[in-house]
């Protein structure tokens, strides 16, 4: 009985892991052309400062932001249009790609409290 249960459990666990969207930077690059019109090819959005810099931002934050635009937890007409056709996999890939871009100008506020 145990001998059957263990492989079954292993199979189940690996099946569910494979199901979760695994971020693919290269695939994200292929899908990023529409994003570049506003956020630029380097992800720094120096074309128009009303759009945020994405290069070097945390991957999981970028994915969260895209999901929020999709669910309507963030209302933005432009982004709503772009995220509507995106799958979970697309979102993970795009987030991974922009997070991976070098030359990002974003910083956290660590050590910038006072007197620096």
């Amino acid at each position: 009985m145990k001998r059957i249960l263990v492989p079954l459990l292993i199979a189940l666990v690996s099946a569910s892991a494979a199901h979760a969207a695994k971020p693919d930077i290269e695939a994200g690059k292929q899908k990023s052309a529409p994003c570049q019109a506003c956020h630029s090819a380097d992800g720094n959005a120096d074309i128009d400062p009303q759009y945020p810099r994405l290069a070097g931002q945390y991957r999981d934050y970028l994915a969260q932001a895209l999901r929020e635009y999709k669910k309507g937890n963030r209302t933005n007409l432009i982004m709503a249009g772009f995220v509507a056709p995106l799958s979970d996999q697309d979102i993970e890939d795009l987030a991974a790609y922009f997070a991976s871009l070098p030359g990002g100008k974003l910083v956290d506020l660590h050590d910038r409290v006072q007197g620096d």
Partner: protein
Amino acid sequence: MTRALLLAAIGLSFASLPCAAAEKGDAAAGKTKAYTCHGCHGITGWKNPYPNYHVPKIGGQHYEYLVAALTEYRNGERAHPTMQAQGESLSDADIRDIAAYLSSLTP
């Protein structure tokens, strides 16, 4: 003469309108007002719980975007309880000052 004056007046009113709207914040004042932001955005790798994801890097972000994002949190157009509460405590001038400070930071 009247026509010239009228045109000048129209020109002036147009010139002053966008200027008033785009009055940029004060980075020095923003540095003090951004003190609370450090609680989450000042700890490298800090995560938001439920759902679990990194609190974003906001230093060096574009001024215009930061003003828009903070205003959207304040207006409830972005759903995030902590950021909405922060936004509600800020005036338009506070938002512009904080955005001016944050956008001035470099890696």
